[in-house]
C-alpha cells in the first residue's frame, strides 16, 4: 500500500522542475539585490541577517550543475532528509513516553 504513495512522491519529485517555469520571486522573499533595485536601499536588519546562515543548497540550486538538475537533486535530497527527520523525530518522542 505504501509503495503506491512512494511512486506518487517519486513522480512529484521528477516533476518539480515545472516549478521553475514560474518567473519571479514570491512576495516578501526578495534577496538583497532585489530590494536594492526596488527600494534603493536594503533595510539594515535584512542586510545583517542575510548571511549568518549559509544554506548548503541555496534556493534549491546545486553548485556546478544546471538549474533543472539542481532543482531535481534538491527535490530528492530534500525529500530523503525530510523523511528521515520526520521518522527520527517520531521515534524520539515515542521513546520519551
Amino acid at each position, binding site marked *: 500500500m505504501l509503495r503506491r504513495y512512494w511512486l506518487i512522491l517519486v513522480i512529484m519529485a521528477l516533476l518539480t522542475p515545472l516549478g521553475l517555469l*514560474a518567473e519571479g520571486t514570491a512576495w516578501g522573499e526578495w534577496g538583497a539585490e532585489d530590494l536594492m533595485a526596488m527600494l534603493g536601499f536594503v533595510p539594515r536588519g535584512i542586510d545583517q541577517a542575510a548571511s549568518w546562515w549559509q544554506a548548503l543548497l541555496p534556493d534549491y540550486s546545486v553548485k556546478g550543475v544546471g538549474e533543472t538538475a539542481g532543482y531535481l537533486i534538491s527535490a530528492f535530497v530534500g525529500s530523503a532528509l525530510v523523511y528521515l527527520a520526520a521518522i527520527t523525530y517520531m521515534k524520539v518522542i515515542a521513546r520519551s513516553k
Partner: protein
Amino acid sequence: MHIPEGYLSPSTCLTLTGAMLPIWYRASAAARAGLDAARVPFLAMGAVFSFLIMMFNIPIPDGTTAHAAGGVLIAIVLGPWAAVIAVSVALLIQALLFGDGGVLSFGANALNLAFIMPFTGYYIYRLAAGSSPAGSARRLFAAALGAYIGLNLAALATAVQFGIQPLLFTAADGTPLYCPYGLEVAIPAMLIPHLTIAGFAEAAVTALALKYVLKTSPEMLVAARPAAEEETSC
C-alpha cells in the same frame, strides 16, 4: 510564503517561536498517543508531500509566484496535530538546507503553515462535511474549501507579520529595519495571489489527493478509527 531571514525583527521571531513551543509540545504528545507505528511512515511521507508540493511555484500575473503547501490534506488524513509535525519538519529542512524561509523565522513560518493552515482548514472541513459519507462529493468539496481557506488564512497571518514590521521597527532616520512594507501593502500583496490562484491549486490538490487516499487506503484516515480513540489523541 516562507518569511526569509531578516524580514521580521528578532523580537518578533522570538515571540512567534514562543507561541509555537506549546503547540509543538502538544502535537508531539498527541502524535505519541494517537499515531500507531503503522502511521509513522505515513506521517513522514506526508511531510515529504508537503516539502515537494511547495517546490511547484505557480506564476502570478503580478510577476511574483506562490505555491500550495499540503497542510490541510495531512490534517484531514492524519489529524491536525500530525500535520503540525509533518509540515514543521518540511519547513525546518527548507530553512536549514535550502535557505527557503529563515532559520530565525522558522517559528513564524511554522505558526502560519504548520499550525494556522492545518487547524483552520481541518475544522472548516469538519464543519462543511458534516456527517456526509466518506467518498461523497460534499466531503471532497469540504476538503477543498478547508484547503482554500486554510492557505489564505496562513497567507493573511504571514502578511500581518510582515506588515507590522515597519510600524514597530524603524531606524533613527525613519527607514524600516526589517520588512519595508506595511499592512496596507502586505495584506493585498499576500492575499490576492492566494485568493485568486494558489488557493484553488491547494483546493484541487487536497480534494484529488483525499479522493485517492480514500480509494487506496481508507483505513489510514484517522477519522476511520473509533471516536473515543480520536478524542484521546486531540
